[in-house]
């Protein structure tokens, strides 16, 4: 477990960065500055942060429609992200992808994905590339409980297991596939038990505890790097907002929403840092101030970026 102060603060910084980015995106969407759909990661920050704390640029991730947290944790540039959300020319995808398609291949981010379950096989392929090229890299596939019921889950994990690929399939079980509760969508309590079907480890952790996620992910990633094959990591968590901005999420039972908000990973980890690790509040606040500055700068960058030239529509169809 990470006890080193710098490491702990780095984890907090990433979580806080995601939190503030998402809060700002929510605000900007309400102000109609962000077009289209925006699916926020609020409440799930500990998952991406804990897992990605083990990764470097040689490692790959695939992300989802709810992908801002994953790509921030993997090192994406906030300015380019925010500009992409705005649909601007300087965005990650030159305004061609938007919130659901942010990618940065050089940083190993093989894209958010508009198709639920679309990332499973892509991650399997990236893991195969790591193995064939002997880079020592791993591929992490992030997806939700909803995507665990797609056929791609089976095909991609079975293939990765049969080929002993360096991959970890991270289920962010936030209890809901849009409005459909996971209890209605499948008949197992812990989705990680599905690992047994592929002869691979399946581990369930508290996805709102960044250190628990980090510890569990670390073991599975290490195992993958050693050539021992893929695994499933299920992180139980909760999305604070609706499926997308504008969805009030009324289908979420009020008592559960309240109980999960009480387990919010941000204040929880902050208290741990201050109370258990005795890190001075001033230091924590310093990180928060730094992140707030980055978010303000990202919004400014996005605002000042020009719209894409309409003629650029015809570019980048083919490499």
């Amino acid at each position, binding site marked *: 477990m990470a006890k080193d102060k710098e490491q702990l603060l780095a984890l907090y910084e990433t979580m806080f960065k995601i939190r503030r980015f998402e809060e700002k995106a929510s605000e900007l969407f309400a102000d109609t500055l962000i077009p289209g759909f925006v699916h926020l990661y609020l409440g799930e920050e500990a998952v991406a942060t804990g897992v990605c704390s083990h990764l470097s640029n040689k490692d*790959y991730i*695939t992300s989802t429609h709810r992908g801002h947290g994953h790509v921030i944790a993997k090192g994406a540039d906030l300015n380019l992200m925010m500009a992409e959300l705005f649909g601007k020319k300087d*965005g*990650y*995808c*030159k*305004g*061609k*992808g938007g919130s659901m*398609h942010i*990618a*940065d*291949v050089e940083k190993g981010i*093989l*894209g958010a*994905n*508009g*198709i639920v379950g*679309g990332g*499973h*096989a*892509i*991650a*399997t*392929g*990236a*893991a*195969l*590339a*790591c193995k*064939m*090229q002997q880079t020592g890299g791993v*591929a992490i596939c992030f997806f939700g409980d909803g995507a665990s019921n797609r*056929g*791609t889950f089976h*095909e*991609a994990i*079975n*293939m990765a297991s*049969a*080929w002993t690929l360096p991959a970890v399939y991270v289920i962010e079980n936030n209890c809901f596939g849009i409005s459909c509760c996971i209890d209605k969508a499948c008949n197992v309590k812990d989705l990680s038990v599905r690992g047994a079907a592929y002869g691979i480890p399946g581990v369930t952790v508290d996805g709102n505890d960044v250190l628990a996620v980090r510890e569990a992910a670390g073991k599975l990633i290490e195992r993958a790097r050693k050539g021992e094959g893929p695994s499933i990591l299920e992180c139980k968590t909760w999305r604070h907002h609706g499926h997308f901005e504008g969805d009030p999420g009324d289908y979420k039972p009020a008592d559960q929403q309240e109980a999960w908000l009480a387990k919010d990973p941000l204040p929880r980890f902050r208290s741990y840092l201050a109370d258990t690790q005795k890190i001075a509040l001033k230091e924590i606040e310093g990180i928060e101030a730094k992140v707030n500055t980055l978010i303000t700068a990202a919004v400014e960058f996005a605002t000042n970026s020009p719209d894409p030239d309409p003629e650029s529509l015809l*570019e*980048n*169809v*083919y*490499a």
Partner: protein
Amino acid sequence: MEERSMWFSEAIREALRNEMLRDPNVYMAGEDIGIMGGSFGVTSGMIEEFGPERVIDTPISETAIVGHAVGAAAAGMRPVVELMFSDFMMVCGDELMNQAAKMHFMFGGKAKVPMVVRAAIGAGTRAAAQHSQSPEAMILNFPGLKVAYPSTPRDAKGLLITAIRDDNPVVFLEHKQLYWFMGDVPEGEFTIPFGKADIKRAGKDVTLIAWGAMVGVCLEAAEALAEEGIEAEVVDPRTLAPLDKETILASVKKTGKVVVVQEAPKTGGFAGEIIATIAEEGFDYLDAPIKRVCAPDTPVPFSPVLENAYIPDAQRVVTTAKELF
């Protein structure tokens, strides 16, 4: 360049070998392509030569076969995956049409997906409705994919090498009836650029446009027409995306009459797209209505009697062409 006569399937294997030897990032994956050498024998001997790490027998998982290739390609490999039948593109439609086709564009040009999906296509093997279709038109409405569809062993080799070296996802369609078709093929390095149609037979009276196995049908029809004093020009686009409009329009300008022949059902087929292009850009060249010879709007049937009636043949092409005079 020395040329030898070989089967279409051998020409494909020669292209695969050439690229496997040339580039260590090229690998192959698909159902039964290794120890069995492929359902049609195309990859026989390759697992022995290149080993199971680069000639990978996959589970029966079309979704993961094509989907993993997208990830591997984005991560620097150059996968050549095989779908045993092109009908199975519908099993992995998301991976092909939503992921592979769009990744480069969606990511603003920052990702490359250099992958080839080889698939056996077409009717005539008495394999009925789910193993005999010609679904090329379906994938042509997905910009980002390139589609190559050779009609000779020579074109098969040259186009496949080009496909493997292309930085985009390429669907490479191999008509089953052509696998045991013989033809001259150049040795060694031999590529054919995409988007360059080939005049398979020159003529001045009518243009027959066809791809895949229908090219042979048109050549046979052209011989029959010649006996009646009609010289048909047979244009084979070779790649459907990109499409060589120039060569097509130049031929139409020369002949003024066009028959487009496709093995797929008429409605929604690629023949309609070619005809629309001619109508838009070459209308003034025409001195007769444009005609199509296609399969009927039915699934591919099983019974040899029914299937023979389904597949366009030279006689139908001849009859249709003569209606223009």
